[in-house]
């Protein structure tokens, strides 16, 4: 099981957190085209390599934060970015 470095609680088993998935920016709802909006809803980069993704420390500090993880090696690289939800492939 992956060990996730929560910025507040320290390293925690991934089962203690909710995986928010690949981080992605929310388009402006006033101007987004259907394809832009649905890409926000459903499409992910899914790179084999560095990825920025979000986690929610559901059993701990209840903070959402973003981390960069290498999907090929499961390495994390800091620092965690509290509240950040921008960008996908890092």
């Amino acid at each position, binding site marked *: *099981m*992956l*060990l996730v*470095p*929560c*910025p*507040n*609680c*320290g*390293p925690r*088993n991934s089962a203690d957190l*909710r995986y*928010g998935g690949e981080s992605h920016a*929310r388009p402006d*709802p*006033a101007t*987004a085209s*259907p394809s832009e*909006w649905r890409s*926000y*809803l459903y499409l992910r980069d899914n790179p084999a390599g560095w990825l920025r993704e*979000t986690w*929610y420390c*559901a059993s701990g500090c*209840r*903070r*959402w934060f973003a981390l960069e993880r290498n999907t090929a090696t*499961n390495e*994390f690289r*800091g*620092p*965690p970015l*509290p*509240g*950040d*939800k921008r960008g996908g492939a890092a």
Partner: protein
Amino acid sequence: MTMSRLGIQSTEVIDRATKLRFKWNGKRFSGFEGDTIASALAASGEHIFSRSMKYHRPRGILTADYWDPNLLVQVGDDPNVRAGHRLLESSMDVRSQNAWPSLHRDLKAANSLLGRFLTAGFYYKTFMRPQWLWPTYERVLATFAPGGKIDIDTPHRYHDKRYSHPDVVVAGAGPAGIEAALAASATGAQVLLVEHQHAVGGHLRFSSGDADQAALTQLQATLAASDVEVLTDSTVTGRYEDNWLGIVQRNHPIAVERLIKARAKVLVVAPGLIERPYVFEGNDRPGVITSGAARRLINLWGVKPGERAVVFSANADGDAAAADLDRAGVEIAEIVDARERRRISSTTGSSRAVDAVVVDAGLASNQRIDADLLVVAAGWTAPTSLLNMAGDRPVYDATAARFFPSDPPANVLATGGIVGDGSLDQLRSHGAATGRLAAARAAAVRHRLQAHTARALAVDGTEPAWAPDERSPLGRDAHPELYRSDTHGMVDYSEDVSSKDLVAASKEGYDSVELAKRFTTATMGPSQGKLETVNTVAAIAEARGETIAEVGTTVWRPPYAPLTLGALAGRVFEPVRVSSIHPWHEAKGVTTIQAGQWIRPDHYGDPAAEVRNVRENVGLIDVTPLGKLDLRGPDVSKLLNLLYVNKWSKLAVGKVRYGMMCAEDGVVLDDGVTGRLGEDHYMMSTTSSGAGGVWEWVENWLQTERPDWRVHVTPVTTAYASINIAGPKSRELVSRVTSGVDLDPDAFRYMEVRGATVAGVSGCFMWRIGFTGELSFELHVPAGHGLAVWEALMDAGSDLGVGPFGLEGQRIMRLEKGHFIVGQDTDGLTLAPSTGMGGLIKLDKDDFAGKPELVWAADRRLPQIVAIQPDNPNIVPDEACQIVRGDSNEILGRITSARFSPTLGRSICLGQVEPELATGGTKLTVLLTSGERISATVIDHHAHFDPAGERLRG
């Protein structure tokens, strides 16, 4: 072959003063404390322990340890016990498996006559067609399945679970593993040493050499005096991401098995080597044993394995076995030295015992040597399982005739026989160097983990440098490559797969090792490849005319050794939640229902009567699990506008509003009422099942999208006990116990909220809403006072006919009123306009969750939730029955909720239908579970009862 107990051996682990009596296939036997089941039976002269899986051939001891494929027995109601490992206990009821009617007269041994038809893939090919006969095939074949008997009446036994966070875990407590643990511990690291066998020491335990015994004693003493935590009869079963380890402890004093989930900073893999059988004709005849088996029997348990032995030796362990046999009084008929290129060709004898060994004498005619025992030392298998699980792929070395690890990740280190050969001192010093390296790297990992924490932990100093691997590697001794002789024999004893089967499989095209494995089932039995993997690979390599290195090996996956499902299930840590009023429900004989983690009252005997009482008098329901979020701050109304589809800016203090939430795809996520308790203070309620998810959802918006908004969220679901008081007499009842609130219908109106003191409890709030359609007050009481307030209401209303109602009664009443339930009447595709409450959606708001999808959905014709009444009022369709077109199976919708309404005396439903069927009066055809089709009618309103809502406004 005659086995018997020897005189006292200096190395033995049995206590001859403690005799243990037990039964073997109903007959009385005895052994000593410290015996395994197998050693006790062997000492008593037994030499047949099981029948083989396919051919039901008699099988005796092969390795005399955990991996012995021939020693699976039934102990009481416990099937597949490894008699080569399980320690004997007094009064054990041990039985053989896979033999009928008895071990010595097994009728299924007739299979062996059919052997040439029961080749690899026989079952796959034969029982494929016709497919309709498969249930019959399965029933018959099941009686041929090996393995013990499962007793479904076996009582539940206790299993335990533990979490551990050591710096270093060492898997394997042979000399190298012990030295690694001691060296790591000496640096201050926290070390867990896990040994599969019953005691530490590895191969030193069954070595009779004085130097080995002295080393064992010294290692045991040093270990006992150290800070290392030692687990024996325990196995590291799996290695997962970031050194997350599963460890099963079999000798826990209370639990049957305990599963330890350990997060090791560094894992040291030191499993030693497993002795490999040799393939030749008659190699599974009882009386053919490995050199390790001979040494274990003699040195650990004082068992003489035979009378006259041939020893086939390719290494020092074979030579040591010959010396042990000689000392034990076994006549050595011949030592066949593989290093001088001599080979065993076959054994002869009955199916039950060896009577002679045939030695391949090269060009001269074969030499036949009378013997009742053949001891084989043909080489080693490196159990690289844990390294494989860490991503390492073993590489074959033809000179040393075994696989070696190649390149494990930096937080997994290997030591001992698995990485090379050497003297005991060399193995020990490699182990110690590995332990020091492991501790140094663990310190760096610890520092790195802490450094990830910005606030919680202050990190001392700079990160220690990543220690380079400067261990001097162990050498590799040359060893003859011994896999198959000039005859064919058994490769996988557990599965009855011979080298001939593997050659045949290869000829049929299953020539990749992974394919051949699945086709023949070689390596897939209880031994799981520990004994047979390399011989399997070698047989395929030979058939393909390639080298073992070219063929490669199969991938070893978890678990390293089997563990029970009980150990995996472990102790249940799932919390159960009940409200503070629950003792009252139980005293009234409530029937409960589980809803998520909550145990809730479903009914108190007669839900229909509970409904009638609410409609006529007044009822109380405990709705504590209702999600409640306390929202404070100047920006709460902005948050509500963002989360709900409707508008919140003008909600006055003291008012309550119903809201519907959508996810960003426009699908209904949750609903509930939110009340404004003060200028900057709101209370949001959610569905009971949605409480956790909505909280997370709210936090996500506030933390990631609107971090500048000033809103503080506190979940207060369990801080309040919630009681809904419903029925025409509810106002009278509430007025008797409440102070500080004007309950006059004009002063406290429908959809309003008030703070109150109820039954002397201050800090309560109540709102006038209703899921039941009756005049009702939903009261929220500080949780500790819930029971007292509930009882006060019951006392105060006794003359009003007050009674409790449960979830079932509430569900009937909400269905009478046509209120949909998110997740019951909606699903993962139900967009907000489908609920019939599209009027709530305010597309003129700048933004809210899911808005773009709802804008685009506005001109689409969507399925609709409608109220439906079967034309026959006595038929209640099952929920999820399809609504179809006429006599066809074209699906036009489905019933989502259905009940018999005691108020209306008829069946009532909610359903989702295609838009063209949504108008009142439309006739529908409902396909019942029985296959019968009934007619039903869509009604004008969602509410089957009181559509104008006069009762709840009263």
